[in-house]
């Protein structure tokens, strides 16, 4: 496709409470692939009330340039202000592509930008390869992950979001990025919504993507009380708790634990699926795990088709024994 004289990539690095999103940093990786293929540079864009820490942390992570837009208007959740700043920067830097994390904000901003500019919008990218120097091919999931689509945008510029955990963090390098501070004054009339209140219900940080072991529970766990067994097993393994959408919608565990479609993509060395039947929307987010153990009463559950070890049995009876056995072996080894 024809990018004309556009060759630079603008990556919006989203922050939450002043901390950069993992998927935001990861989106620098495809930006480098694309930028270098087009012979352009990668500009990381920070928009926030205070960007200093993030600017420092971004140094050496592969961006050629860091652009910081700071101001009181850019507090978390004010998407109209973020959109104004992003579209201003897209106008000024005239990139070949605008990339962002596949988060609610990243998706909203890139979708709005694509409508404003009438350009292609790619959401939820899992990988990128260049078919030739100017044809980026992105892999997307369809139908809950049962089908994969390789797609190319048909406009230049285009916008894209990348799924959390799909790309590796860019390799640390000694390369110093040039820092530019841009001032953006947001006109009052573009602010159509106001954040009245922000409530944090989850205080602990959950890092599913980097976990060595993930123990997940699904609908088959039956209750919030039973779900504690999942937490206990994760605990003895030094792993992180995951969950399916039904378990989260039942209120047994918070959204931050969701694995699969509209949740996190994980690839731990060990994945234990408890009371999970194996809907494709869940499997698509954990199939890349090293070793998969499934515990399910239903011998025909599709989760057994992908499990390395499938325990046919009631999770409520299996998990307590596993927990005790692992404890024994751990203390025995010490």
């Amino acid at each position, binding site marked *: 496709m024809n990018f004309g004289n556009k060759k630079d990539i603008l990556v919006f690095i989203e922050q939450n409470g002043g901390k950069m999103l993992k998927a935001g940093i990861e989106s620098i990786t495809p930006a480098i692939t694309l930028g270098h293929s087009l012979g352009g540079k990668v500009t990381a864009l920070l928009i926030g009330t205070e960007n200093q820490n993030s600017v420092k942390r971004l140094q050496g992570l592969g961006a050629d340039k860091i652009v910081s837009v700071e101001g009181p208007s850019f507090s978390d959740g004010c998407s109209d202000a973020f959109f104004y700043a992003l579209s201003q920067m897209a106008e000024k830097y005239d990139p070949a592509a605008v990339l962002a994390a596949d988060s609610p904000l990243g998706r909203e901003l890139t979708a709005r930008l694509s409508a404003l500019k009438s350009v292609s919008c790619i959401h939820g990218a899992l990988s990128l390869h260049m078919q030739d120097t100017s044809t980026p091919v992105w892999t997307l999931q369809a139908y809950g992950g049962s089908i994969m689509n390789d797609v190319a945008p048909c406009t230049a510029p285009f916008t894209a979001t990348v799924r959390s955990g799909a790309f590796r963090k860019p390799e640390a390098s000694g390369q110093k990025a040039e820092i530019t501070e841009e001032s953006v004054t947001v006109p009052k009339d573009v602010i159509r919504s106001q954040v009245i209140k922000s409530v944090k219900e989850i205080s602990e940080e959950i890092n599913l993507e980097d976990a060595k072991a993930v123990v997940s529970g699904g609908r088959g766990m039956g209750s919030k009380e039973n779900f504690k067994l999942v937490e206990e097993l994760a605990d003895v393994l030094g792993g992180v708790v995951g969950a399916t959408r039904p378990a989260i919608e039942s209120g047994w565990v918070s959204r931050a634990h969701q694995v699969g479609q509209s949740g996190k993509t994980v690839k731990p060395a060990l994945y234990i699926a408890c009371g999970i039947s194996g809907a494709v*929307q869940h499997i698509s987010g954990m199939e890349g795990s090293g070793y998969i153990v499934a515990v399910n009463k239903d011998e025909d559950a599709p989760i057994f088709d992908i499990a390395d070890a499938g325990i046919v049995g009631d999770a409520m009876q299996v998990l307590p024994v596993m927990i005790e056995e692992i404890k024994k072996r751990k203390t025995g080894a010490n």
Partner: protein
Amino acid sequence: MEILVCIKQVPDDSVTVHLKANTGEADLDGISPVVNAFDTYALEMAVRLKESSGGAVTVISVGPEGTENAIKSCLAVGADSGYLINDAAFNNAGAPEKSKILASSVKYLEKSTGKHFDIIFCGKEATDYSYGQAGPQLAEIMKIGVVTDLTDIKKADAGVCCKQETEDGYRTVQTGLPCVVTVSKPAYDPRYPTIRSKLAARKMEIPVLTSSQIGNITAAKTANITLRIYEPPKRKCGVKIKEKTCADSACKAVGMLADAKLL
């Protein structure tokens, strides 16, 4: 309050889709078409808002022939009227064009019915491609506010007050009217139709709007080009453990984990 709900008909998402052996396309034959789950949540939220604040709920869908059934199933659970937007010219429209088609349809409906929509509801994404672009794009084209990922909505003095789901909790976001909102899974479930409401919906007319009413919008200008469709590589199935007791099975599995040096 005049409320519009945009819905999409998708293949039942509890069914795993495979490829057709002869054409290599996604094989959707035999998978029942349903209203996208997030759109059913949006509709339920819209109908609840109508019930508490008054007004009417209109449903529209850009889709192929046969989408009337999806619209009728919305009429059976609280929507008052529905329109299908269908034209061969709209086939293969990219997401931004589809949103333009929606925006033009809104304009046409407002002109022809004299209604003025206060809120446009969309599901936060569709279960087929999970893009979630329609809501924000529609708002941008119409130059009105948008709040995404709602789990609740209330009428407020100057507009609506939205409960927006976030990664670690929620936000309360206020926005003026008209606006677009996109809906995630609320705490409640969509209602079921009754036999009577189903029968009544079946008898209702679903007018079809074409490019002659809403204008000719060039399709496929921004549509992504699909280069390859394939099924994800399958993992090999391992061993099944089914000992006499669950405890025996558990011990055997832990033994295997230890052997694989995973503990």
